[in-house]
């Protein structure tokens, strides 16, 4: 009997993958929508079962359980779909999903909460998708933040990718208000340090990822800031020069970006001079991210990334440079097996229909960036995720729609208002903000009393 157990034990030891100094026995992921596996404006289990934390877990401990909230199709909110290539129209699917696997007795391993920012991770216990991920319906878990639920699991390894919503809300809403859509750096640092400190106290190893630059996401880069001839999809030239659209403060400048959500206004002729067939009315403030706003957001993201790198270094954690990965992808794409994935909207394969969140391929690629960083830091030999199932899909699921090619030539994108409302609602991005008057500085109080219902409308991303 004794000999048998020893034999079994040694067999078990042999079966364990060589994992160096990182132990994924109790792996917990903290983060936001990116960690949850949110895609195309919704959280749906059919997609999020391949969230990057789930993929990391599967590679590090094949066959081991990794619990995450799984929502039935079409997700919460319902995921967006591309209805047609004729005037490409993006709309939410009909209906709404529901949580299929409430546990109640213990937290999920994946504690990524769509919409959460750094403060939410340490302070918010309900509201929005916190009500799903943090299981406040369970008396055992009610009133516990994501961080508390992570600590409670006595984790052996924790990945932390938080802070996207501290900046992306400003980018997606087109409105930059310090303290409202953009988290002040000092507060970001305080909260991130609180997270790192609480996790370090459990003895768990950590890995952090940093924040991508807003100018690398199709939500910001897709719509040109010049008047486009809908028949040719090429810029209208006057005296050989393209004509910039009209923004809330007059004609746009070279560095100003028009957001994906502006497509409905453009279709109504807004932003386009009357001489070129438009209404002559300006695009609204929320449709434009001007060069100054971009500079403000980029500088703040750089600040966050400094903090993340410093904290990761202090804690002996791995650091995943997602910012660099996406900048590289914007320049040269991601080549895989002779195909090249790019950040281009719809046709690039890295970003989903909301222009912010990755596709399943994008998440799998990001999982491998995590795995590379973890292997490099901890001397582990976790195998990368097999990208083939994510890169190569089957045949199109969309039935033939009988389009003619003439109509396709004149195609113009429509990211519908329904899609926008759904995306913003799911991520608690404010829709009716006004830019602060110059020097106004924006009142930071909107999430001040955030305990308990941190999603009172002030959340970003």
């Amino acid at each position, binding site marked *: 009997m004794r000999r048998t157990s020893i034999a079994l034990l040694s067999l078990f030891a042999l079966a364990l993958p060589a994992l160096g100094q990182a132990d994924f026995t109790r792996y917990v992921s903290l983060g936001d929508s990116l960690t949850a596996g949110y895609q195309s404006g919704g959280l749906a289990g059919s997609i999020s079962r391949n969230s990057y934390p789930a993929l990391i877990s599967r590679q590090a401990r094949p066959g081991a359980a990794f619990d995450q909230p799984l929502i039935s199709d079409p997700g919460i909110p319902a995921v967006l779909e591309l209805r047609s*290539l004729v005037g490409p129209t993006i709309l939410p699917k009909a209906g709404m999903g529901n949580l299929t696997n409430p546990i109640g007795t213990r937290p999920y391993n994946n504690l990524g909460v769509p919409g959460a920012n750094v403060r939410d991770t340490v302070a918010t216990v309900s509201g929005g998708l916190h009500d799903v991920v943090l299981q406040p319906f369970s008396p055992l878990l009610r009133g516990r933040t994501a961080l508390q639920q992570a600590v409670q699991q006595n984790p052996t390894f924790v990945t932390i990718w938080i802070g996207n919503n501290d900046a992306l809300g400003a980018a997606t809403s087109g409105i930059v208000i310090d303290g409202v859509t953009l988290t002040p750096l000092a507060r970001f640092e305080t909260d991130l340090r609180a997270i790192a400190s609480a996790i370090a106290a459990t003895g768990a190893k950590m890995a952090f990822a940093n924040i991508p630059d807003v100018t690398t996401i199709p939500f910001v880069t897709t719509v040109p800031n010049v008047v486009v001839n809908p028949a040719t999809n090429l810029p209208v030239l006057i005296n050989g020069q393209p004509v910039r659209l009209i923004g809330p403060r007059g004609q746009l400048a070279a560095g100003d970006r028009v957001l994906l959500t502006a497509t409905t206004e453009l279709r109504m002729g807004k932003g386009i001079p009357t001489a070129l067939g438009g209404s002559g009315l300006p695009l609204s403030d929320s449709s434009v991210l001007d060069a100054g706003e971009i500079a403000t957001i980029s500088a703040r993201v750089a600040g966050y990334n400094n903090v993340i790198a410093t904290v990761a270094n202090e804690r002996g954690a791995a650091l995943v440079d997602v910012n660099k990965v996406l900048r590289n992808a914007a320049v040269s794409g991601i080549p895989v097996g002779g195909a*090249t*994935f790019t950040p281009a909207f719809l046709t690039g*394969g890295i970003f989903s229909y909301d222009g912010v969140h990755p*596709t399943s391929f994008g998440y799998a690629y990001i999982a491998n960036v995590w795995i590379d960083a973890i292997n490099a830091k901890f001397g582990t030999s976790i195998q*990368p995720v097999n990208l083939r199932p994510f*890169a*190569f899909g089957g045949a*199109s699921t*969309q039935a033939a729609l009988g389009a003619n090619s003439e109509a396709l030539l004149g195609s113009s994108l429509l990211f519908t208002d329904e899609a926008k409302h759904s995306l913003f609602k799911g991520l608690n991005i404010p829709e009716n903000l006004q830019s602060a008057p110059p020097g106004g500085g924006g009142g930071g109080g909107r999430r001040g009393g955030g305990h308990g219902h941190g999603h009172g409308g002030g959340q970003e991303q």
Partner: protein
Amino acid sequence: MRRRGISLYGVAFGALALVAVAVPSYAAGFGVFEQGSKAMGMAGAFTAQADDPSLLFHNAGGLAFVTESDFAGGFTYIRGIKADFEGANPFPGSDYKAKQETLAEFIPHAYYVAPINQTWKFGLGVNAPFGLTTEWDANNFAGRYLSTKAALRTVDINPTIGWQVTPTFGIGLGAIARVSDVVLERRVPAVNPFTQTVVDVAGIKLESDPGTGFGWNVGILNKVNNSFSWGLSYRSKVKIDYEGDGRLTQVSTGNAQLDALLRTRLPFDRNLPIKTQIEFPDMASLGLAFALTPSLLLETDVNWTGWSTFDQTTIRFTGGDLPNSTIRSDWKDVMNYRAGLRWTRSASSELRFGFVFDETPQQEEAVSPLLPDADRNGYTIGYGWKGAKLKTDLALMYLDFKERTRAKTFEGESPFLGTYKTQAWLFGITLGF
């Protein structure tokens, strides 16, 4: 500045990336050293013997010693046993396996040598020292966007003059005219906006017209005495400019809208003029032959091939129809080592044995479905029979490639990781009159 969104579909599909338009790359580098069955029986260790008409390939110095006119012709038949691929993560994945289409190629050779007088001799060789084929299932192979077929053919026409300087020392000098053509095929991918995954949208076939290039060769053979000879042979680089056409054929994505859109964006079913260039490497051999006994001869050769000429190949679409593409190879110069044993059983019959170790010029990052090369060992056995009018030489070679694993990728290029396992038989027959 990227042309962001100016034409959402135009830009994305226009740049649809003929990401990796293939380059010819073949086995063994893509050299074929089996150019005469007598030499092949001794694994090509023949530079210091060069005593049948295939001397025109192996060492032109042997031409100096020709005393009567002689013709030899035959072929080498290459038959793949195994050309398997097992994938690795992240792409195409450790659950992935594929097999190449079975290789079966005839590579012909013909040689004529004759004395002009006691001192000067003439020879004309026709053979195919470079070429080969790789082919994968175009519909299902996970590397089909890299290559589904690569076929390179060459024919050398090699007139040579031999000069018998002394009774034991000869020099040969030849001119090489090389005619070659190339066919490369692969599938073209795009992201299907409806599935957000990659789908085949076209097949592309690049087909060159025959291109011609010129070079030269020189050889020295010194039969020092009855029991020792040495030889030195060199064949120059040959550069060939190819012109031809590419042709894109639409492959349905299964979505009529997308298919229609692609028809407006890609130049399907037209001849798209292309140009490219290949510089074939130079090669040198040094051979030493020792008569161990009156009936037993041992030769050892060292060959050097200047494969660093094969660094990158750019395929230019001269009509601007599609973006140019460059394949990076970065091959290196390599050596191979040959040993052959000749057992003269009687005046009319010889048995031969040989061994070759051939070093691949291909570094790990360049290993691809287009040409998965590897170090290899070759084992040969040969038989020669001399009749009153007809000489017959037969040779059989078993070529065992070392498993070749690629775990690395050139910066900015597509990972296609895994292990290739290749084995082949070569059979040679040469008849002499």
